[in-house]
């Protein structure tokens, strides 16, 4: 099942509104033990949450030769632990351009955001977006992403991307 309505949903973080308070990571960790959104500290000392963008053309899906990554009906890229065998290649972890596919030492050894699949199933939204004190995280339709960007958000996002993918 790789079809979804419209272009599906995703998370969007406006880093210009984010104050690095760690609430998103904490709430995710409370729900799932190991958080799937993770704080990082940039070279200039800013705390930023790293998160999955549920890419339309997801690299992680492409590189997994077990087919353990699937798109669900809301457009989320979800990991099927029973298909994943936690292979040593960790291709998925390496392939993600947003550093949002995490290696762990538990279970199938990798973890990723599934847009709170269990919560969506009962009509709730992703918990991080609900609890962010600043309203920096949106559970958004991919089609409305452009409207969410501002000059400040783009500039802040570029700073974050420069951290994730440093120039060599």
């Amino acid at each position: 099942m790789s079809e979804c309505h419209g272009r599906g949903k995703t998370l969007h973080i406006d880093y210009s509104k984010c104050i690095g308070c760690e609430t998103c990571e904490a709430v995710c960790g409370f729900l799932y033990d190991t958080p799937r959104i993770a704080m990082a500290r940039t070279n200039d000392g800013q705390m930023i949450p790293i998160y999955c963008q549920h890419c339309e053309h997801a690299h992680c899906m492409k590189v997994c030769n077990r087919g353990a990554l699937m798109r669900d009906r809301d457009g989320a890229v979800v990991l099927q632990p029973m298909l994943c065998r936690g292979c040593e290649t960790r291709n998925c972890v390496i392939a993600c351009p947003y550093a949002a596919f995490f290696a762990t030492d538990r279970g199938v050894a990798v973890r990723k955001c599934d847009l709170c699949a269990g919560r969506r199933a009962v009509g709730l939204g992703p918990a991080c977006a609900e609890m962010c004190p600043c309203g920096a995280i949106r559970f958004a339709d991919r089609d409305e992403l452009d409207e969410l960007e501002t000059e400040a958000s783009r500039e802040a996002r570029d700073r974050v991307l420069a951290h994730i993918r440093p120039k060599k």
Partner: protein
Amino acid sequence: MSNAMNFAFMREEPAPPNGRRVAIIGAGPSGLAAAGYLGCLGYQVEVYDKLPKPGGLMLFGIPGHRIPADRIQRGVFTLSRKFGVNFHNKTKICCSAPLHEEEGDHFSCDIRGLGELVEDHDAVIICSGAWKSRKLGIPGEQLKGVYSGLEFLFPIRAVKYATSNVSVPPVEGRTVVVIGAGHSAMDVAHSAKALGAKRVVMVYRRTKKEAPAGSYEVDRLIDAGCEWLERRTPLRIVADETGQHVAAMEMADANTGETEVLPADVIVTSIGEIPTPPFQKELGLENVRKGEVRWLHMTSIENVFVAGDVLTGPSKIGKAVYSGLRAARSLTNWLDLKAQHRENEYNYDADVITRPGAPSEQR
């Protein structure tokens, strides 16, 4: 999506009432997260706070340009309207210490004892934060014009809610010296600028790279017109000719090894807060901190739990939220087992172990 910090994020609607009543002392992020969790489960939750509005430091410490106050207030509104949480504002839960000791005490008009709450509820969670400011311990700190970070920031926010007994520190056209380089020091400096200070000088004992708030934040302050002096250790605060009011600060410059004098009208020492729980000793908080308790987050008084900065010392909103959620869940486990007289089946180790990468409990 409603634009609210949704403390009741676990459910759309509350579960049917389960007949249990829980009191929460302190409506900061830890208390509100605990209230949301318990409200979702059908608990009757009573939240007590000495301030006129719920929100804790999210409302009364951190400036509004960083956290939108209405987003917090909408979350509180949902708790009270939809989840039946009762908010008792301006109510201080009494401790052994005298009144008017910490910032914000002068707001409370009702005082109730912890013992009374314990009697009236199935359980209590103490989420009272860390509001007492750490002192530098140098001569002259008692002079007029010397503030702690919270003494400086609190009135700026509080004056919106009650004007009679708070006043914003006078900084317009003056020189403000801020000691420290954490988030609250940054907030003090930005606020001083916004209030029209003529000159804002940041003084930090280490280098920009080591600043807890990060060099990016320091650069933003410098861009905003503040001055940054690093590797300076405050030695003494000097009084003016009346002997009452601050006039300057003496500091050691580790770059040159010399002592310099910096003229100042206002000095704000923003070097951290310390927790002030009611009944510190009686609750045995030291043991809770060390993890030497039989029940996660429970104090040495049965049915009394503790969470947030009051337990960990000053931390972050995320850590306080996590702590509040964990305490609330621990409390529900405790009451469930206790109702069946099975307390000793509780597996403490299974509950405390936080997995690698998960926010750690007591950092």
